[in-house]
């Protein structure tokens, strides 16, 4: 009986607790794990610089999961900001609107470079999208015909590449990075290798043809990594001739263990990415609910603090961590767009 009474009391107490849950005074952010380290740095510095506001809570979980939470509705019990390593999709904007999130502000924070790296003990590596396409595509063109990828070694593709078995650790399909990899490397390589025409001749549907171009081989030589870059790093540590795909900031933090490959002869760095010379990069964003600005304490200040040059500028802590700062004019534009309250 005592136990029963206790449990009833506990239930009542917890229900009462839940009722009290009102008036949130802490910014809540969720989304991309690529943006997470930057958001963490800003959130922490924000908390230190503005002692009146609590440090924002930044959840990890991925761009799609973050945007899904973001589009749940407006109000205390929904998140304020979604970090995203890709642009919000039309379907997601629709979902947002359906749930009452009609006013979304997009804020670009800079660019993220995607690099190819191998174990530090290997020889220098110079890659081209065409070679990567030939090494990793599911089907390639040989003698004018589309056949299942026959290449087993890098040297079979180009004599300048190492005489080692192809082993590539690429981001899994749920990663935002995968999309960039497909778009900037495989699609380009497909074109450079002249496979596009052959595929288009075989398939009349344009969408299906484009899909075929970026299909990755499934015979085990290209490995999807669904975890984080730490997993890719561990894979490369155990297979020294493997090539992995990393974010620029992750590579810079582990430059003593990795050797980065050039793409089209360009070494990836914040400079070459900012200038557009290095081809594989993508913009990073976060999305804010306009309805929450001025309601959730500190939200407006947080966004302004984030887009300030002392954060996203080329000398700021984010750039130091590996974010590629947007050019001066673009940063000015980002700030103006936010001030003006432009909606999507």
């Amino acid at each position, binding site marked *: 009986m005592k136990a029963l009474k206790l449990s009833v009391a506990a239930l009542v107490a917890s229900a009462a607790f839940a009722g009290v849950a009102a008036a949130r005074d802490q910014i809540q952010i969720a989304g991309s794990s690529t943006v997470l380290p930057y958001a*963490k*740095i800003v959130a922490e510095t924000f908390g230190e610089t503005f002692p009146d506001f609590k440090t924002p809570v930044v959840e990890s979980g991925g761009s799609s999961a973050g945007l899904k939470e973001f589009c749940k509705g407006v109000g205390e019990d929904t998140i304020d900001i979604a970090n995203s390593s890709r642009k919000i999709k039309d379907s997601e904007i629709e979902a947002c609107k359906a749930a009452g999130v009609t006013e979304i502000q997009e804020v670009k924070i800079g660019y993220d470079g995607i690099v190819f790296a191998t174990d530090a003990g290997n020889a220098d590596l110079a890659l081209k999208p065409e070679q990567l396409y030939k090494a990793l595509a599911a089907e390639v063109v040989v003698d004018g015909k589309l056949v299942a990828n026959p290449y087993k070694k890098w040297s079979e593709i180009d004599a300048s590449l190492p005489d080692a078995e192809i082993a590539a650790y690429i981001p899994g399909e749920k990663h935002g990075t995968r999309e960039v990899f497909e778009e900037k490397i495989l699609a380009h390589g497909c074109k450079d290798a002249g496979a596009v025409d052959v595929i288009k001749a075989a398939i009349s549907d344009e969408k299906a043809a484009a899909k075929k171009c970026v299909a990755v081989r499934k015979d085990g030589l290209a490995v999807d990594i669904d975890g984080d870059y*730490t997993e890719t790093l561990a894979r490369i540590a155990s297979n020294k001739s493997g090539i992995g795909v990393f974010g620029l900031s*992750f590579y810079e933090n582990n430059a003593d263990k990795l050797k980065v490959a050039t793409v089209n002869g360009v070494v990836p760095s914040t400079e070459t990415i900012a200038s557009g010379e290095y081809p594989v990069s993508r913009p990073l964003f976060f999305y804010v609910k306009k309805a929450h600005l001025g309601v959730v304490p500190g939200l407006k200040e947080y966004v302004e603090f984030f887009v300030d040059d002392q954060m996203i500028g080329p000398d700021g802590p984010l750039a130091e961590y590996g974010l590629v700062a947007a050019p001066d004019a673009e940063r000015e534009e980002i700030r103006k767009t936010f001030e003006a309250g432009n909606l999507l």
Partner: protein
Amino acid sequence: MTDVASPTVRVSTRPAESRRDIGIKRRYAAERRFRAYGISAIAIGLFFLAVLLWSVVSKGYTAFQQTTITLPIEFSEKVIDPKNERATDPKQLMTANYPLLVRDALVKQLGIDPKKRPLVKQATDMVSDSVRTQLRDIVTADPSVIGKTIPVTLLADANIDSAFKGQIDLSVEESKRKVKDQQVAWMNELADAGVLGKSFNTGIFTFGASSRPEAAGVGVALVGSAYMMLIVLVLSLPIGVAASIYLEEFAPKNRLTDLIEVNINNLAAVPSIVYGLLGLAVFVNFAGMPRSAALVGGFVLTLMTLPTIIIATRAALKAVPPSIRSAALGLGASKMQTVFHHVLPLAMPGVLTGTIIGLAHALGETAPLLLIGMVAFVVDYPGSPLEPATALPVQIYMWANEAERAFVERTSGAIIILLIFLIVMNLGAILLRRRFERRW
């Protein structure tokens, strides 16, 4: 069969013995073999446990030490409050440029020309960015330090910390390292002067999450885990025990109770992420409880632990001999008196063991917390279970994904802390069982 050499003698003296001997050797051999299997099974288990512990401890023990730099900091009024406004404007002390104080002290200590900007930058990079808040807290706590020079122990930057612990390969080309040759030289110079050194890292227990490894700790995660364990204990023990007593002692045996039993056993095997989905749908979305809060985490883990506790409690109740019940009933006790005065106290060791094992299981869960927003970067301590918090295993998971080298040892360090917690809980379970166990 056994003594082929002297069958005649045996047969003549004890005719029955040779028949009784049949198979003894074979059966002994089988027993020896079985023992060998058992010992090798345990040996394999111990071997893997040793490998696990070794890999964690060898990587993680360094996390409990932190490199610090003790510098005489001059709390110069010129820097902190140049216009002497602190009496009228309390914000002045909050926003002062404290890193400048550290820069000046460091430049003086190392004898660098303050005009050589890149060199000064390299020197200040050796100290953690957390000095701003550290010095600010000192000044706001006691504004009378302004104008004085006080030795302050500052955290070294994570890269210097790793280098000082020998975790960075200094033979690699300088441009590929986070620590520059000049910094290493200064580091050795400061270490020789006794200014820089390793001390016990209390920060790893007290700090909240941080993007700077040297200022990151499991403090918030410990508090979050403690809140959740408390909620799980308070909710799941009474509910679980009440449910199992009713099912075991009072409920009639029919199809309905059979169905309930099957369902409880099933629930115990449901993947924990399912409970996370349930928690998101029911507690966060429907009941409108706050995201990332330990309260919701506690509720979800309670649901997850309940089946374990019910199964363990029912087993413990079943193990109480029926003679106890018969004797109590025979002496005129009511059914409820029988249960609460006699059966339950005897079953208590089993109940508590089951509860603690359930709690330990809940302590190590991350998957259900992911969906309710507890896999998050939380800096501030939660004042109540309603405020955002994380949990220990979540902190381990998040550190494991960090790019910085210094988080590698911290990840293992956090695993050691979690293991110690689990060992303490399991020891508690054993002690409770020893104390209350009764044999008949």
